[in-house]
């Protein structure tokens, strides 16, 4: 079985701080990580590999430094890594991103395509389903459980909603978008780290894939950003450790101080 996992390298938003004076994001020294939903998707793919045997290929579109995220995936146990990197791909919205990734996927054998639900720096949740549409694959989003059927021709997945879930059997080939809570991704192994650098991360540019240039990069992105702004920094707040009665009294006092009540 061939599994392709699409991943994105993102800034670790849990580490992002806001400069209290300028009100802007402090980007310096923020580590880059594999997007958490994607990492759980990778773990799910590696579990299928452990269980039933599979070749796991990781695919990412990004700048050259995204190679590190792919090395990490190799060190966790992925077999092959491909980085789509070209200036022409830059500035892509979800449409252009999914067009580019889909073009790469046409070149790769795939019985199962695994994506994360959404990236923590964009939160759109559109790229996975769009890839499925480009490729004409059935897809299931918001997957929290994944099981391969014994004959290996379909998977049973649990699709989560706010108020319930569906259990869905879906024939391969298909595309799934995974939730980060579906598993606890394994660590890299020490041997895996050394192996990952013995392997090649293939870099594909525009010339390596068959895609309409009108559908890629900034020019191929129908999304237009009207305005972007940073939410104002909030003060740290104050913690009181008191019983509920005392707590209610304090809240009322503070609200009065601020003339809210």
């Amino acid at each position, binding site marked *: 079985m061939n599994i392709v996992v699409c991943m994105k390298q993102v800034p670790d938003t849990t580490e992002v701080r806001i400069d209290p004076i300028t009100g802007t994001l402090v980007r310096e020294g923020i580590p880059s990580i594999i997007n958490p939903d994607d990492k759980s998707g990778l773990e799910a793919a590696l579990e299928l590999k452990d269980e039933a045997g599979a070749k796991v290929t990781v695919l990412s579109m990004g700048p050259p430094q995204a190679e590190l995220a792919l090395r990490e995936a190799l060190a966790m146990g992925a077999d092959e890594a491909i980085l789509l990197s070209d200036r022409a791909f830059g500035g892509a919205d979800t449409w252009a991103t999914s067009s580019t990734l889909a073009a790469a996927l046409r070149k790769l054998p795939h019985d199962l395509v695994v994506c994360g639900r959404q990236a923590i720096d964009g939160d759109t949740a559109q790229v996975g389903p769009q890839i499925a549409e480009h490729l004409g694959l059935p897809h299931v989003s918001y997957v929290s459980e994944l099981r391969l059927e014994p004959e290996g021709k379909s998977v049973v997945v649990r699709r989560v909603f706010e108020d319930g879930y569906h259990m869905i059997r879906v024939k391969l080939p298909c595309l799934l978008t995974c939730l980060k809570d579906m598993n606890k991704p394994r660590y*890299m192994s020490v041997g895996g780290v050394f192996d990952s650098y013995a392997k090649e991360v293939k870099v594909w540019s525009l010339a390596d894939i068959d895609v309409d240039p009108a559908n890629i990069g900034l020019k191929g992105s129908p999304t237009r950003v009207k305005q972007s702004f940073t939410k104002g920094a909030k003060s740290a707040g104050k913690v009181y450790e008191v019983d509920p009665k005392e707590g209610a009294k304090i809240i009322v006092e503070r609200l009065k101080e601020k003339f809210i009540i």
Partner: protein
Amino acid sequence: MDFSFDREHQLLSQLYRDFAENEVKPLAKDVDETESFPVETVRKMARFGMMGIPFPKEYGGAGGDNLAYIMAVEALSKVCGTTGVILSAHTSLCAAPIWEFGTEEQKRNYLRGLASGEKLGAFGLTEPNAGTDAAGQQTTAELKGDHYLLNGSKLFITNAGYADVYIVFAMTDRGKGTKGISAFILEKGMAGFSIGKKEAKMGIRGSSTCELIFENVKVPAANLLGKEGGGFGIAMKTLDGGRIGIAAQALGLAQGAIDETVAYVKERKQFGKALAQFQNTQFQLADMQARTDAARLLVYRAACSKDAKLPYSVEAATAKLFASETAMEVTTKAVQLHGGYGYTREYPVERMMRDAKITEIYEGTSEVQRMVISAAMLK
């Protein structure tokens, strides 16, 4: 001269940090207080290839190097001194001498299990009357045809009881002094080999430190490590490597105490401002970090010298001397900066201070390191 990690080691430091934060740190307080050996953690370390970092893949290792190994000891010790020394004793003192001095058969039989982490290792040199004076061995090994008969005891043995494989030193020829010492590979469960009293310790309380007792233990002649009479050399070379591991443990403890202190002084307020705003705090922290960085360079230099197959005995002694004394000084200052809270078990710095003390003592005291360093200077 390049002071930055290459790409492999950068990725490794990410792995070690994540593993230490998520798997080791949450248990550290309990491991110390209940003196419980972290069996499950060791199993997880094995799963991710940490029990045989510097050994080749064909022998079950991760195919890494000594720098990669001591970085792991450092990262684990930053959050738990106990876990750091378990890895150090296993790797440096048991697996390493088998890798370095073992026969092909010994490597297949023992190194593979140790490096893959299926088995845990220990090292028995110290005796009640042979500590720093390692030549005063009372344990004897008598050749009886195809086996040796071991009698005697060992003291303060790290990982004892939990370890499956033990490197044990014994006198094969009393008349020859240090040239009469030989090294043997023993297995848990050999008839006559038992674990004695467990020590109650000041620090690294989750690590198991016990007596080993040998009563007519039949050790196959094939388990002689190196040549008969070559044991003292094996012990000294093994300890040279071990010292880099302990220096890394000390380094981790120092950095761990600094990290805890930095977080604390930003939060804790006295006289209307955070402790971090007082110049005394700032200067103390600067001194702590400067010393720790210096220790780090010495520790990495020793590990890189070993990797480059250069002499590293003096480098290892220098690293251990400086890193362990740094750990003691830095953890003591960390407790002081925490004030009364630092003395309580609510905060980890008192544990780090207790853990740090042993690094000045085991695998060669600071005094022994000074002897090694000065002997090289004055020869």
